[in-house]
C-alpha cells in the first residue's frame, strides 16, 4: 500500500457515501426516517422492498425499463455495426460530414426534443409503447455505438478482410464468422454504453409513455408525490435501480476503460 493510493481510496469513499445512505434508508421505516437522524437502521425492515415486489404498478416499471433498454441496445448495435464497418473501411461521398453530423445529435439537449418527440411518436401511433422509447434513445445511442465500434474496427488490420475474400468467403459470412468474433470486445463496450445511457435517461422516456410502458424512474417520481413523501419506499426503489447497472458493469469491467480510448472523436 503506497502513499498515493490514499487518493483513490478517499475518492471511492466519497462515491460510496450517498449510495450507502440510500441503501441504509431503504431498510428503515418511513417513521424512523422522519423521526430523526440515525446512522444505521434501528428497526431493520424489508417492508419497502415487499411493497415494490408485490405492487404491479411498481414492478412493472422495472420490467418496462428493462424491455425498452434491451430493445434499444439491440437496435443500436445492429444498425451501428454495418455503418461502423463502412466508416472504418471505405471512403465515400460525404463520409466525414456524415460522421460529424451523427455526433452532433449527442449535443442536442433532450429538453429541446421532448415536445416534438411527443408529437412525432403520437402521430405515428407509437405513443406509450416500449418501441417508442427504444427508438427515441437511438438518437444519442446510435452515434455513440458507431463511434466506439469504428474505433475498435479501425484497430483490425485490413489484411484480415482481404485474406477472407481470397479464401472465398462472402461478405455476410466473413462479417459474422470472422469479423464479429474479432471485435467482440468492442461490441461488448458499445452495448454497455447503449445500456447505460438508455437506462439512466428519463426525460424522453417519461414524455413518450403514459401507462403501458412507463419506466421505473418515472413511477418513482409519481408515487413519491401522490402518497405523501414516502422516503423509505423511494430509497428502496432507488436502490433497486442501481442493481442492473452494477451487474452489467461487472461483466464488462475489463473493457470499459479501453472502449473510450480506442474511439476517435
Amino acid at each position: 500500500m503506497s502513499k498515493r493510493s490514499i487518493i483513490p481510496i478517499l475518492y471511492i469513499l466519497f462515491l460510496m457515501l450517498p449510495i450507502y445512505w440510500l441503501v441504509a434508508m431503504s431498510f428503515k421505516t418511513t417513521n424512523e426516517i422522519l423521526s430523526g437522524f440515525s446512522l444505521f437502521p434501528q428497526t431493520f425492515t424489508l417492508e419497502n422492498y415487499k411493497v415494490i415486489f408485490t405492487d404491479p404498478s411498481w414492478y412493472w416499471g422495472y420490467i418496462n425499463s428493462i424491455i425498452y433498454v434491451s430493445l434499444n441496445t439491440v437496435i443500436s448495435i445492429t444498425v451501428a455495426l454495418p455503418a461502423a464497418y463502412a466508416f472504418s473501411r471505405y471512403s465515400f461521398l460525404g463520409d466525414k460530414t456524415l460522421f460529424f453530423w451523427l455526433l452532433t445529435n449527442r449535443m442536442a439537449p433532450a429538453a429541446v426534443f421532448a415536445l416534438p418527440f411527443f408529437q412525432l411518436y403520437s402521430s405515428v401511433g407509437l405513443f406509450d409503447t416500449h418501441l417508442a422509447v427504444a427508438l427515441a434513445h437511438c438518437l444519442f445511442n446510435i452515434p455513440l455505438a458507431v463511434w466506439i465500434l469504428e474505433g475498435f474496427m479501425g484497430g483490425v488490420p485490413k489484411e484480415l478482410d482481404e485474406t477472407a475474400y481470397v479464401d472465398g468467403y462472402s461478405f455476410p459470412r466473413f462479417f459474422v464468422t470472422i469479423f464479429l468474433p474479432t471485435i467482440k470486445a468492442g461490441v461488448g463496450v458499445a452495448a454497455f454504453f447503449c445500456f447505460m445511457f438508455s437506462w439512466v435517461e428519463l426525460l424522453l422516456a417519461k414524455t413518450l409513455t403514459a401507462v403501458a410502458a412507463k419506466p421505473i424512474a418515472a413511477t418513482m417520481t409519481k408515487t413519491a408525490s401522490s402518497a405523501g413523501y414516502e422516503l423509505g419506499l423511494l430509497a428502496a426503489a432507488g436502490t433497486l435501480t442501481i442493481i442492473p447497472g452494477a451487474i452489467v458493469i461487472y461483466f464488462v469491467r475489463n473493457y470499459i476503460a479501453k472502449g473510450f480510448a480506442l474511439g476517435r472523436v
Partner: protein
Amino acid sequence: MKTENQKAWLFVLPVLLLVAFNALIPIMTVVNYSVQETFGDNLFFWEGLGWFEQILRSDRFHSALGRQFLFTFLILIIEVPLGIIIALSMPKKGIWVPVCLVTMALPMLIPWNVVGAMWNIFTLPDIGLLGYFINNTLGIEYNMTRSPIAAWITIVTMDVWHWTSLVVLLSYAGLVSIPDAYYQAAKIDGASPWKVFRYIQLPKMKTVLTIAILLRFMDSFNIYTEPFVLTGGGPGNSTTLLSIDLVKIALGQFDLGPAAAMSLIYFAITLLVSWLFYTLMTKDDAK
C-alpha cells in the same frame, strides 16, 4: 488507406434513416414553432424572427445562460484536474484495478432522477447524512432550500460525484497505453515527476482528454434532470439552468414560439462551443 466505395452508403443507410427520423423531424417541428405565433386551437400565424429577437434581448435568458456557463465552467475546472489526479494515482495492475473501475463507474449507471433524489435525502438538514453532519457536527448552517450558495455547492458537488469518474476512466485508459520504456527512458534522464507528467503522460492523454472534456461540456451544458429533482431551480431562480428554464417556458407556460426559438439558440451555442474546442484541440494533429 481506405478504399473508395460509394456502395458503403448502403451500410450507413439504416443508421441514417433512424437518426434522421429522430433528429430531423423534431428539429423541423422546433423550427416551425420558432417562427409562428399561436393563440390555441391549432391556429398559427407567421411571426418571423420576432421570437429570436425577444429571447436574445430578454434578461431572463441572459441570466439563465450566465448561470449555465458558470455551472459548466465550475464542472470542467473541478472535474478535469481531479479526474487526472485520481487516474494518475490509481494502481496500474493487480486485483485493485477492477475494484476501482467497478466502484468508480457505479455513479454513472444510476438513473438521473435517482441521483437527484439520492442527493436530496443525503443533504436534508435534519435527517440526511451530509446535511446532519454539516449542520450539527460542524455547526455550519447549511440548507439548500434557503441559501442559494448552499444550493450551488450541492449541485456542483453532485455533478462532481456523478461524472468525475468519466474523466478518470478516460484518462486511465490513456495512461495504461503508455509503454514502460517511456518511463524507463525518463528515469535514465533523471526527469522530475512534473516533467514526466508534462512531456510523457499529458501528451499521451490528449486524445482521451479531448473526448472527456467534450463529453463533459455537452452533458453539463445540457443537464436537466438532476438539478431539477434536487433543487427544482431554486431557491428563487438561483439554480435555474438553461434546460430548466426552457422546460418551464415550453411545458409550464406553453409558450411554444419563444421556447422553440430558445431551443435553437441553445443548440447553436452548444454546437459552436463544441466545434471551436474540437477544432482547437485537433489543430496540431492536422499539421
